[in-house]
């Protein structure tokens, strides 16, 4: 027997760390989703597949700005010393992924704005005519679409990866001790973004392509999750115990049912049938992918906070 008793009972800390509630998973999910959308838009521009104004790459930026703002609002709600939030922009801390993230976000907004100005929808342009002037100025720049594509791609990869590295840099939580979380969140962001953009795409060809891309991302995601566990299970006792939280422990039911089965395997199966035209495209599979990506962030944030160096012995 090994029993630890403590007189400490600090709020958010005891009996186990629960400093982050719903706000951080929501932000990580929306950040990943926007990152995926930027990469998709960037791909269309770089490949020159943006003929006509129906291309999804012209619809993405406005939606992305709205979603990212919602995510950042959730992040703001989580802060305990809100009046001091501006302090993140008075310094750059090279070792802090949060500092990197703050500055990346500051670059993402102008990039999305320029992307938006490439084609201002009529219903906005009629009400705010100065946007049309801005649009004409932006479009007069040589090769602007290619530049916008490249910037979207680079910033999308940085944003998507940082949301995972943010967690893996917190060394005290063994479940997060894996840099592959950055790649996992990036690919999960790509799969949820493909699912969302697939549903709003107006061109049938684009919609089909995104469903196929989504299948590829979901398959890669399964492999990355396997690698994530192989890494933890071949590490020390605390990492092994923390992996067990998801594999067999208190978070296993949510993880296996909602993340792996309903979030990846079932939609992969449905979308495989629909891209080979054996069944019709419906929103069922994409919605499952989006919910699966959301629950993945939730379960990783919560189980990660539960994982611990000191009470690892007591997690069965």
């Amino acid at each position, binding site marked *: *027997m*090994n*029993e*630890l*008793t*403590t*007189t*400490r*009972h*600090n*709020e*958010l*800390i*005891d009996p186990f*760390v629960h*400093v*982050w509630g719903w706000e951080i998973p929501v932000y990580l999910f929306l950040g990943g989703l926007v990152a995926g959308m930027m990469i998709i838009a960037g791909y269309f521009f770089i490949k020159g597949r943006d003929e006509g104004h129906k291309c999804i790459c012209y619809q993405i930026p406005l939606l992305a700005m709205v979603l990212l703002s919602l995510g950042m609002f959730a992040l703001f709600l*989580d*802060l*305990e*010393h*809100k009046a*001091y*939030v501006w*302090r*993140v922009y*008075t*310094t750059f*801390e090279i*070792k*802090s*992924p*949060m*500092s990197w*993230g*703050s500055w990346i976000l500051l670059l993402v907004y102008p990039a999305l704005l320029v992307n938006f100005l490439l084609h201002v929808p009529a219903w906005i342009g009629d009400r705010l005519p100065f946007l049309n002037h801005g649009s004409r100025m932006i479009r007069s720049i040589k090769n602007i679409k290619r530049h916008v594509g490249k910037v979207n791609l680079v910033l999308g990869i940085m944003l998507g990866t940082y949301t995972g590295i*943010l967690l893996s*840099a*917190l*060394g*005290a*939580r063994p479940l997060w001790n894996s840099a592959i979380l950055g790649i996992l969140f990036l690919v999960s962001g790509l799969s949820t973004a493909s699912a969302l953009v697939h549903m709003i795409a107006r061109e049938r060809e684009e919609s089909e392509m995104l469903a196929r891309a989504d299948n590829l991302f979901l398959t890669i995601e399964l492999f990355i999750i396997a690698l994530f566990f192989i890494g933890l299970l071949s590490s*020390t006792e*605390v990492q092994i115990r923390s992996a067990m939280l998801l594999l067999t422990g208190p978070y296993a039911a949510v993880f296996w049912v909602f993340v792996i089965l309903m979030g990846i395997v079932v939609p992969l199966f449905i979308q495989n049938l629909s891209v080979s035209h054996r069944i019709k495209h419906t929103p069922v599979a994409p919605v499952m992918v989006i919910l699966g990506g959301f629950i993945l962030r939730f379960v990783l944030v919560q189980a990660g*906070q539960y994982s*611990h*160096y*000191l009470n690892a012995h007591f997690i069965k």
Partner: protein
Amino acid sequence: MARFAMVIDTKKCVGCMDCVVACKTENRVPEGFNRDWITTEARGKFPSVQMEIRSERCNHCDNPPCVHCCPTGASHVHTLGGVVLVHHELCIGCKACLASCPYDARFIHPEGYADKCTFCIHRVEKGMDPACVAVCPTHCMYFGDLEDPHSPVSRLLTARRYHAIAPEAGTDPQIFYLI
């Protein structure tokens, strides 16, 4: 350069919590929160049992994850003795430092900033011991400079066997428990 550390003799500690009360009084720690606390670890099966009582707090690590993860530089290493401190007016309350600490030594002060043990740096700078060390009725706690080979902490760590908490977390903790 000084390197402040604390040595606590678990053979002498009775878990009276005087250190806890002294800290709360000295640092006006708000109700419901603790900067230091008593942990009791029992091992074995009756009748062959072993118990260790420890007075625990921030380990003022040499490789402090709470300082590395801070996005504003609020968490920092003090120029004197490597003490880990928080600038309240720089802290945004993001709680990354709370999540990054293997010892769960930090908490959010009701005013919104991250708070923790300071090694009573305001006392140490005047040449006094931290409040918890000063009040210990069994004299089981020692505070001093590890860079000075003649300090009580250096001599105790040379003479006695000791352990730190979760050194495998890679933080290089600076509180040592004599066994």
